């Protein structure tokens, strides 16, 4: 059981909730390594993937997670939904509520929309990414991966590099890192910074090289040209030279430091191919953890406890 009905902002979780999700995900990760990857725990529960913005990776991860827990998972995608025909989000919420769904995973390009859904339906809500705001399960799977590779979370220095302003990944990861006692540093030019990164609890560095030797984790964000207003940096070439992860930078980091990326990667922009394919890049571990962490979040939100996860 979690102390919250919804996971909309990562701050909805207490530290205890957060650690419970990570610990429960450990058990589910073991299930995911079996030949028969299915548990009966959420049989009869209905989970809706309400994806109002195109997504393949995250939606698939949630979908697999729901199936492995034997829930009935329904995809309500933007292209197939009424929302493109002009139905309001409130009406969509009330419609889904009338169908007695237990849990709704929502992704939408508008910040705050999961909060709206929660106000208009009885189901539990997991925010699968809302605009530039938050993407809490991404932060949870990132913490899971850090703990798995580095053995602990407290005291880690994590540099998050790139388009912080438009990144919902950073929006959740920064406060999550603060909760577990890690030290987040957001790195990038001021054109890619939110107005007040300090209030999220992050230190700020405009250069990568200055802080590189301190980092236990270099977390490279995808450069989202489609979200940028105007021209936030002169060229991809200059961006890559100043803020891209490459072998020279990797060798300037601590020997056991790791490189993370939420995907999809722009090889040659924020991360070189050599680094992406190196054993110190844990990108696929993150994807793998994603299924287990989402299973844990669904399971615990729908009332499961830690003992049932081991079944």
């Amino acid at each position: 059981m979690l102390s919250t009905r919804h996971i909309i902002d990562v701050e909805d979780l207490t530290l205890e909730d957060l650690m419970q999700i990570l610990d429960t995900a450990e058990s589910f990760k073991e299930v995911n390594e079996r030949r028969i990857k299915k548990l009966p725990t959420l049989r009869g529960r209905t989970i809706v993937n309400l994806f109002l913005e195109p997504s393949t990776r995250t939606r698939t991860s949630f979908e697999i997670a729901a199936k492995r827990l034997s829930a009935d998972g329904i995809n309500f995608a933007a292209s197939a939904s009424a929302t493109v025909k002009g139905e309001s989000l409130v009406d969509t919420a009330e419609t889904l509520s009338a169908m007695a769904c237990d849990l709704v995973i929502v992704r939408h390009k508008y910040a705050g929309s999961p909060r709206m859904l929660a106000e208009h339906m009885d189901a539990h809500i997991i925010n699968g990414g809302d605009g530039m705001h938050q993407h809490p399960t991404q932060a949870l799977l990132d913490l899971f991966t850090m703990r798995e590779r580095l053995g602990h979370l407290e005291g880690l220095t994590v540099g998050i590099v790139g388009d912080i302003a438009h990144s919902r990944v950073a929006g959740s990861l920064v406060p999550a890192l603060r909760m577990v006692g890690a030290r987040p540093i957001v790195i990038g030019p001021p054109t890619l910074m939110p107005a007040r990164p300090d209030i999220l609890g992050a230190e700020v560095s405009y250069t990568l090289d200055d802080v590189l030797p301190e980092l236990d984790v270099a977390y490279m964000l995808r450069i989202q040209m489609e979200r940028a207003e105007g021209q936030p940096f002169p060229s991809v070439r200059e961006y890559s030279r100043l803020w891209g992860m490459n072998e020279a930078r990797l060798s300037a980091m601590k020997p056991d430091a790791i490189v993370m990326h939420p995907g999809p990667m722009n090889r040659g922009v924020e991360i070189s191919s050599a680094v992406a394919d190196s054993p110190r890049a844990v990108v696929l571990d993150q994807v793998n953890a994603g299924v287990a962490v989402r299973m844990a979040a669904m399971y615990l939100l729908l009332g499961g406890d830690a003992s049932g996860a081991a079944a």
Partner: protein
Amino acid sequence: MALLLRGGRVVDPSIGLDEVCDVLVKDGLIAEVGKDLSASGATVVECAEKIVMPGLVDVHTHLREPGYEYKEDVESGTRAAAHGGFTAICAMPNTDPVCDEGSAVRFLVERAAERGKVRVYPIGALTVGLQGESIAEMGDMLAEGAVAFSDDGRGVQDSGTMRRVMDYARTFDATVVCHCEDEALVGKGVVNEGVVSTRLGLTGWPFAGEDVAVARDIAIAELTGCRLHLAHVSTAGSIQAVREAKARGVAVTCEVTPHHLFLDEDALTPFYDTNFKMNPPLRTVADRAALVAGLTDGTVDAIATDHAPHAAHEKALEFELAPFGTTGLETALPLVITNLVATDVLSWSDVARLMAAGPRAALNLPPVTLAEGSVADITVIDPEARVEVTPAFFESKSGNSAFLGATLLGKASEVLVGGTLALRNGKVV
């Protein structure tokens, strides 16, 4: 018919009046002001413990008619105005069709004459279709009753166009009312850029987007000599710019809204309540303090509502999709009394200056005083009346108030427009 306002505290700083006395109204005019007046056959309105002042004016109302009658129309909007204590309102031109030519002004004047509870002064568009390109037919609109010109809702982006607009307005000594927003800086901003834009993941609308436009428009007013009125000033920088411009003699006036005075960006966290989405956005605590300082030192000329009604289904959208604006006509006076008069920041004379004389002077409207012979546009205020801001409280068609749920103390009990009661015992007549 005659009407006697008996025993109120009669306040009109424009003629140095502040004393308990009676006001006798006859044939639409103030017949006599003095102690122990009597008039046979006059309707008596007991005003003991009440404040009697020149009729309040809102220089910034969106009446929505024609085109958006589902949000508001002349009848409902002027009922809301009377309910809020206003005897006159200035209607912004962003209707459909836009009020950018004489016939559109005439429509509004005629509609107000038929259905209006209070006086309606049309503000015509500065540019055709509010497009910021071609100067609208100001002369024609003035002839039909327009009082000023504005592209409110959008700033005129091109400085050369603004210069020509202001130059042309000088032909008529007309006031240009500016919505100060530099779109290149504001972009798709929906909340103040800073703490709340960062926390909520919403695009920021930086103070500089207003300050730059205010500075530009003051400079162009200085260049052209045009009368400039700045709508809904929301930043400390704007207030300082106006203060300095006035000190060097520029013909500039400005207004602030109750929502910028009494709310700040923190209202938005964490629920993304679209009733707090306005343009310009709610700013910081420091900006609020600067606006209040502007009220007391004379930098600010008017408190104006920017009454912006929207239907419930329009506001019940994702924050970034919902329209900007809050209603304001019915809460402005109660908010000012509760937050500024009851706390001794403003006197009743200040209220008369900021909500009656100041707005009239800013837009060059016909003066109204409580002197004998003046037109009897009068607001009577009950400072002890309790206001629960609930949907049922509103005469407006729309309930998108940023102050829903508030309990306020003090509201208008009577409103006289040309000697006729539009509000009696707090109820629209």
